């Protein structure tokens, strides 16, 4: 039996680095110092869980984010957990050899492997819009999911559908949990386009070490990273409360780093950890770089009108209009109708009175 620890040592990671990794992981997961030995113990004794990492319709930004996990230690370790199995973007094998790995894992580790899905399957035309090794991705996905222990939906594609599912969604790109034939497997969603690297590695580490999901919210996202909005922890929040806003991209407020609310920042409606964990090793995140959040980890963010509009466009009204335009329109029509009705009523009243006299 090969444990995680064995794999790491084989990859040239020292015991010292391994223990550091365990305490860092415990801290990242919010578990407290006493959990570090537990993580170490689990990794030393548990059989390494194989991970199949499938790619459907996607742009590989999840993989790109993942391999940039800020702490190099975490990156090395987690990559050594994963790279030995199947991930068609970063594995060495190719062609039939690669596809054989999927078959091997599924038969050898029936019910014990993790299935990580990046991207989603298009269901129209029997799935012919995404072909992997000569077969529709849908088939590969449903086959691999049948015997998986659990499924990780990486990124907004697998979690929600993302841009390939944008209206009118001609290929019927469908998020993993809505694909028929997936079976009743536990699914964890890690949305974002891409998700934050540290969030991805932390989720994988948690699942591999504890063999269960971290606590999830009602929509299947891990609470430890998706329980607060960008807005709740944004370092520009004091400017929001003060009423100091950027009005134009080149104005004084933009230079002073005021709140981007009026520029359509979706921070107030987006659940993610960007404003705390940040990106590229905690260096920065979109708002810190002077651009509003586009809400990439939210369901349907691609179909909610401009990234630079505060109020959402509502397509049901035929032309693009937001709630205020529709509301002012309706209030004007009703107000005008009331005025006209009042005029007719007045005339009528005057006439009736005349008749009585």
């Amino acid at each position: 039996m090969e444990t995680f620890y064995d794999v790491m040592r084989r990859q040239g990671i020292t015991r010292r680095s391994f223990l550091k990794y365990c305490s860092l992981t415990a801290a990242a997961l919010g578990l407290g110092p006493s959990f570090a030995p537990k993580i170490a113990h689990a990794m030393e004794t548990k059989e390494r869980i194989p991970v199949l990492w499938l790619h459907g319709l996607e742009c590989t930004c999840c993989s790109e984010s993942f391999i940039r996990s800020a702490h190099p230690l975490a990156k090395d370790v987690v990559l050594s957990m994963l790279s030995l199995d199947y991930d068609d973007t970063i594995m060495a094998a190719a062609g039939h050899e690669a596809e054989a790995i999927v078959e091997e894992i599924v038969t050898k580790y029936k019910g014990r492997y993790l299935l990580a899905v990046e991207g989603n399957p298009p269901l129209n035309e029997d799935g012919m819009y995404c072909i992997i090794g000569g077969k529709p991705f849908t088939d590969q996905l449903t086959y691999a999911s049948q015997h998986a222990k659990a499924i990780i939906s990486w990124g907004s594609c697998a979690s929600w559908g993302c841009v390939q599912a944008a209206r009118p969604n001609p290929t019927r790109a469908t998020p993993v949990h809505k694909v028929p034939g997936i079976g009743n497997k536990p699914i964890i969603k890690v949305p974002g386009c891409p998700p934050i690297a540290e969030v991805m590695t932390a989720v994988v580490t948690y699942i591999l070490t504890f063999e269960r999901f971290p606590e999830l919210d009602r929509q299947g996202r891990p609470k430890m990273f998706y329980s607060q909005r960008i807005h709740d922890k944004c370092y520009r929040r004091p400017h929001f409360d003060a009423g100091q806003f950027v009005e134009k991209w080149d104005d004084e407020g933009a230079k002073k780093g005021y709140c981007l609310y009026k520029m359509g920042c979706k921070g107030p409606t987006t659940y993610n950890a960007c404003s705390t964990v940040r990106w590229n090793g905690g260096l920065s995140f979109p708002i810190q770089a002077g651009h509003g959040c586009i809400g990439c980890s939210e369901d349907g963010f691609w179909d909610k009108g401009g990234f630079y509009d505060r109020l959402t466009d509502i397509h049901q009204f035929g032309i693009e209009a937001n709630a205020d335009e529709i509301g002012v329109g309706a209030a004007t029509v009703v107000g005008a109708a009331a005025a006209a009705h009042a005029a007719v009523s007045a005339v009528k009243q005057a006439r009736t009175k005349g008749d009585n006299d």
Partner: protein
Amino acid sequence: MADQMADHSIETKQTAVYVYEAPVRIWHWINAFAIIALCVTGYFIGSPLPSVSSGEASDHYVMGYIRFVHFAAGYIFVIGFVFRAYWAIVGNSHSKEIFLPRIFSKDFWDELWHEVKWYSFLVNEPKKYTGHNPLAILAMHLMFVWGSIFMIISGLALYGEGAGMGSWQYQLFSSWFIPLMGQSQDVHTYHHLVMWLIIVFAIIHIYVAVREDIMSRQSIISSMISGWRLFKDNRPTDD
């Protein structure tokens, strides 16, 4: 001139009925002011005032105050609505009208149709009611009662987002309502749209109240102040 007026008062001897009990009247006006505060502050939350361009962030609290007023008025609105629903149970028959319209009664729809004709200038005289007429009941039930319920649920769901996952607002409202609507952005949009529905309702409500006060066979506006419905003729009522 004096004779004429004396004649008139004999001709139209008024009778009066006590319709709106004090709690209903007090609620009506508190609610009206809460809605005005909510609409104004809510609008400025969606489309904030021009940026405060001077000084440190700690010198100002414009959005903070606007949002505080919105939340405070929101709680007044919620508590008022719960109280009003309670009063519909313990109050007089008129207090139940807008919560439980008699939609299964044929008379209700016949009278509603008559009211539509009255507003379309097709009949010369409206019917006479101690309470609300059926058209008013239906409009208040659909636009006001259900509009308010929607605003309360969506409003508390949005408040729960800021209060956080451990809060009762989040547990009771945000946790199921936000996924039901799609995501947070959708809840904001619908909350905003229903504000306009309530504004449209208010325009109609105020216009019709003024018009009926002048043209119908009973008092309207003063009734919501004194509670007494005065009738302008002596014929029997229709409800």
